[in-house]
């Protein structure tokens, strides 16, 4: 039997869609963990990226922090926090936020710093205050890259939120780890499939969001991350 057979078997069992611990419930839990972490990471990383991109100071720090944070294994953080703090939301929130910050920070910084220097000069010379330059010119122009950063961060946290189930919490990982424990591969496959679908849905969501939010005059920038 291939992966898809196992997964299909499991996904098509209607029992899995109802009651406690059902697919919808765990999906919502997963999105809840991911969403909260993404939100907090965005609240930290976007202002930081904008400020550093606008002033140009601390750019080296941003790049290096971005790289360094990618090295941190999220599972290790999760487990460590679980050992020290029993059952607080911080246990799962902090590691996921740490995971989401680098792509958002680096992309926001590059988006803002990459605004054409002539445009920045014109914004300043026209008589905009620093706040107006940032909110009316730099951020709108940097928006495509900011969205790329958010999308990358979202994919990372949606995927990695699976691990919080290892600590006994909810989410799609529940199917996977319970399946592994009971040597039953179907839920493992099913969970993995649900994860993949979720990830693609995140992609679609951000593609639609970009289409809605980015002004027509901006040409799309490609970012390779």
């Amino acid at each position: 039997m291939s992966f898809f057979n196992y997964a299909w078997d499991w996904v098509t069992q209607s029992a899995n869609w109802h009651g406690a611990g059902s697919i919808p419930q765990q999906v919502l839990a997963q999105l809840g963990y991911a969403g909260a972490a993404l939100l907090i990471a965005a609240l930290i990383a976007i202002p930081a990226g904008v400020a550093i991109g606008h002033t140009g100071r601390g750019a080296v720090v941003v790049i290096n922090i971005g790289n360094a944070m990618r090295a941190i294994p999220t599972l290790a953080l999760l487990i460590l926090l679980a050992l020290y703090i029993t059952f607080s939301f911080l246990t799962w929130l902090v590691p996921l936020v740490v995971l989401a910050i680098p792509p958002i920070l680096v992309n926001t910084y590059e988006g803002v710093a990459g605004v054409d220097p002539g445009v920045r000069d014109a914004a300043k010379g026209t008589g905009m205050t620093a706040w107006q330059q940032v909110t009316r010119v730099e951020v709108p122009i940097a928006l495509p890259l900011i969205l790329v950063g958010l999308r990358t961060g979202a994919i990372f946290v949606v995927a990695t939120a699976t691990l919080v189930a290892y600590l006994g919490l909810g989410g799609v990982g529940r199917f996977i780890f319970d399946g592994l424990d009971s040597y039953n591969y179907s839920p493992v496959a099913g969970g993995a499939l649900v994860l993949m679908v979720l990830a693609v849905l995140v992609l679609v969501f951000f593609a639609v969001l970009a289409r809605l939010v980015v002004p027509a005059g901006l040409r799309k920038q490609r970012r390779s991350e």
Partner: protein
Amino acid sequence: MITFERVTKRYQDGTVAVDALDLEIPAGKTVVLVGPSGCGKTTSLRMINRLVEPTEGRILLDGQDVRAEDPARLRRGIGYVIQQTGLFPHRTVQDNIATVPLLNGWRRPKARARARELLELVGLDKALARRYPYQLSGGQQQRVGVARALAADPPVLLMDEPFSAVDPLVRASLQDQLITLQTQLHKTVVLVTHDIEEAIKVGDLIALYRPQGRLAQFGTPERLLGAPADDYVAGFVGFDRGIRRLTFFPAAGLELSAGPVLGADATVAKAQATGEPWILIVDDGQPRGWVPQARLASLSGDTPLDQLLADGIGHTFPVRGGSLRAALDAAVISPAGQAIGVDEDGRVVGVATFDQLRAAIQAADRAADQADEAAAAADLATHRSADEPGARR
């Protein structure tokens, strides 16, 4: 009026971009800052709207130190045009133009209406209002940049190499547009360029910089061409300045003679009787061609002139509104060595020989020198002279 008082800009590594600059820019005039790369002209310009802060000295705008006001508020009262246009790519053309009015709190419909007015003012089709900058050509983008600078009707307009990035045809058109706008709007325009021809064409006054931030000469274009302060200025201005300065001398003072001018129905005999070395054949006022006396010799006296083979006239010069330079060029290119002066309808008024041109040029020179001496005396009186006593020619 903009005044620089001993303004210096020194950077941390010791480079001096502007060195103790004293300059007075009169209101309502176009003043061009021109010089080689790195001479401090752009830095000087950017100190007016405080994008750069002076290390020493101060800049007064209508008598008030520019530092007295909040920089953002100051800049909203000063139009700013740069070489790369700096148009906001995420906004439509009309929203770009409406930037300062919107910042000043205007309602959006009113600001957009004003933007569309300005589109017309700078010579663009109103249909471009809803387009985005990337859809416009370079020349169109520059015009939008100028419209944006003018939107809030600021008394001062700063332009930093605004036309350098477009091709020569578009550049000439933009320069003409600026000159026309100035006749309507009378703004105080400070324009930076590295192109001396542009400076001479659009400037009422020219401030020519030396390298490292000092002024070499400040005066009218005629003065820089006619009386450069030293070899550096003479070299920068160019070696055909003797002829180029004639652009500023009107042709109205040129004495014209009608001697060689004859109608097409006149006869060969009459032509020979004038004693002129060349005859200009005119038909219903329009010049037809030059005929040398030698060609008349073999013909019978009663042949009408319009049957003769005539040499081309080259071009003519307008008597009203033309310059001595146009007249000189007409004379040079004419086979007869005489310039043909015409009125607004193209009808011949008279012709001028090289001798007559020379006399007119010398008269204009004398008049210019007297005017300069009077101006220099007035400068001395107000102790604001930025012009150094010039060597003659």
